């Protein structure tokens, strides 16, 4: 097995025992990137110079006994997180040449934990998409089938993890953008509770929904990464000062005696029968581990797409007003007036999906329509959250499919925005309610595409998610397959 194929905890053990060096691991990662990224297109920018410096520093630290949780671990970063001195594009022409003057808090925390930052991964423009097709820097291809999408918007991070172009990655999730690509690429993806991880330096899409989280090769790695990412940050007033547990503590505790809710609204007509069968397999495993699976209802689930695609674009239209071509970012030449300059800059700098969402958001917030759309959606959002609060009175966790179908073909839905939006049907409610959720590989389609199961917990119970996911991961009879790439 090449070094780049290892997990975070495997690399950590080999570094600590001196079996390998951080520079060797990093070389294996860059060799792999050189070999496959021309096809996959998981990365927008590489950070070779800084990465080798960090790896050399890690080797010095290791030789002197200074070991931190991510010392010498090559991590890929979604290009939505600001990195000091390193171009941060957010997948957009608007920020094609933007070089942030500071690090996002999660970047700082990973650097302080010893991580080696490999590069910035491809994504849907401003995280608006479910397929990585809206990136200004070209689509990322699914390592399992290069004609299919990797999911989005953290598609580059998910593909990089699965194709072993990094050891672990970080993404962001506004409506499924970590979990859906994790499911489509066959990796583990965790969206933390809103407020668990700092958003400082995360380029804003929908501020009441955005969260940063890990994409990893197994559940233990998700726990290791969460130990570094989670925690209060004075620079993000929505981050929460709750204590952060050691997420590795529960990895082998099992789920005997737990109650697992199976919401009937997630097993609707239209769900792919192979996904249904794979999730049924997980339910059987969960029961064999001594947990009780119970039929429950999340009655407002069917409204989540409508609610989300009002609230997220509304927040986006406000957040993206800052891109005016004055302080940073792209600006077109010409324009006789400042107003012309704004319009020309924004029209040329944003792609079609971003403009579409700005239009939806501007419309729904405009005079005369606010009550009918934004206020109504915010009320139904409260009902969606109440569904979860009610369910978690009797359930430890909730179990659903992550996506209704396996990865679709590149180009298949790109001309029909509404069909594209409906692919997020199982992930959106989680962000609206602010609860944490994790996607775990649970099977393969007959075409050989990975399938994902989603576990959901109540606010700030990431430890329960990790405990349940680790139990399922180690007991689910699942053949370890490798992608063709």
């Amino acid at each position, binding site marked *: 097995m090449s070094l780049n194929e290892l997990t975070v905890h495997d690399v950590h053990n080999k570094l600590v025992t001196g079996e390998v060096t951080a520079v060797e691991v990093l070389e294996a990662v860059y060799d792999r990137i050189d070999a496959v990224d021309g096809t996959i297109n998981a990365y927008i920018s590489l950070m070779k110079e800084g990465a080798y410096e960090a790896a050399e520093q890690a080797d010095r630290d290791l030789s002197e006994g200074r070991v931190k949780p991510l010392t010498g671990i090559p991590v890929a970063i979604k290009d939505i997180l600001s990195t000091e001195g390193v171009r941060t594009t957010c997948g957009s022409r608007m920020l094609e*040449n*933007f*070089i942030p*003057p*500071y690090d996002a808090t999660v970047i700082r925390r990973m650097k302080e934990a010893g991580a080696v930052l490999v590069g910035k991964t491809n994504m849907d423009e401003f995280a608006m998409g479910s397929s990585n097709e809206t990136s200004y820097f070209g689509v990322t291809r699914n390592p399992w089938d290069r004609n299919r999408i990797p999911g989005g918007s953290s598609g580059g991070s998910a593909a990089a993890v699965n194709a072993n172009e990094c050891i672990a990655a970080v993404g962001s999730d506004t409506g499924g953008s970590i979990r859906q690509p994790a499911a489509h690429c066959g990796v583990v993806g965790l969206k933390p*509770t*809103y*407020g668990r991880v700092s958003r400082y330096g995360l380029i804003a899409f929908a501020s*009441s*929904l955005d969260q940063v989280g890990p994409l990893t090769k197994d559940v233990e790695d998700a726990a290791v990464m969460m130990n570094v990412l989670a925690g209060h940050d*004075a620079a993000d*007033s*929505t981050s929460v000062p709750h204590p952060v547990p050691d997420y590795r503590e529960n990895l082998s505790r099992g789920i005997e005696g737990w109650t697992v809710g199976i919401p009937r609204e997630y097993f609707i007509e239209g769900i792919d029968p192979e996904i249904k069968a794979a999730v049924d397999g997980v339910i059987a495993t969960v029961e064999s581990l001594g947990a009780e699976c119970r039929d429950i209802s999340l009655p*407002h689930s069917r*409204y989540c797409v*409508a*609610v989300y*695609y*009002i609230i997220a674009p509304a927040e986006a239209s406000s957040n993206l*007003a800052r891109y005016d*071509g*004055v*302080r*940073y*970012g792209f*600006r077109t030449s010409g*324009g*006789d*007036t*400042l*107003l*012309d*300059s*704004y*319009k*020309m800059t*924004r*029209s040329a700098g*944003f792609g079609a999906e971003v*403009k*579409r969402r700005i*239009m*939806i958001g*501007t*419309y729904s917030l*405009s005079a005369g329509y606010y009550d009918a*759309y934004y206020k*109504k959606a*915010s*009320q*139904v*959002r*409260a*009902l969606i*959250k109440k569904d979860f609060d009610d369910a978690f009175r009797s359930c430890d966790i909730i179990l659903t499919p992550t996506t209704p179908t396996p990865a679709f073909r590149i180009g298949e839905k790109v001309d029909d*925005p*509404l069909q594209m*939006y409906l692919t997020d049907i199982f992930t959106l409610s989680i962000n609206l309610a*602010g609860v944490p959720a994790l996607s775990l590989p649970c099977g393969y389609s007959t075409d050989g595409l990975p399938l994902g199961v989603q576990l959901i917990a109540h*606010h700030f119970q990431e430890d329960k998610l990790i405990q349940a996911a680790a139990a399922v991961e180690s007991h689910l009879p699942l053949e370890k397959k490798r992608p063709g790439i």
Partner: protein
Amino acid sequence: MKITKKEVEYVAHLARLDCSEEEKDIFTSQLNDILGYMDILNTVETAGVEPMNHALSLENILREDEIRESLGAERALANAPDSDGEYFRVTRVID
């Protein structure tokens, strides 16, 4: 019809976007599809439901008003498309 081409033009202006005639036609059609789908919300009874704007209850976060190091003009202007070294430069606003 939820939204007309004329309204699309108005919303584009509010959003500071220019649209070609072709884009206006596409947006008119797509926004009608999307906004039409949103009608599903009218079937939900929401009388008396407090709108939810955030996942957690938010409180004011206060801190001491103390002087800290700031970015400085040079770094703040480093990404500007146009500046004179001290200020961002834009197209003339006043005659």
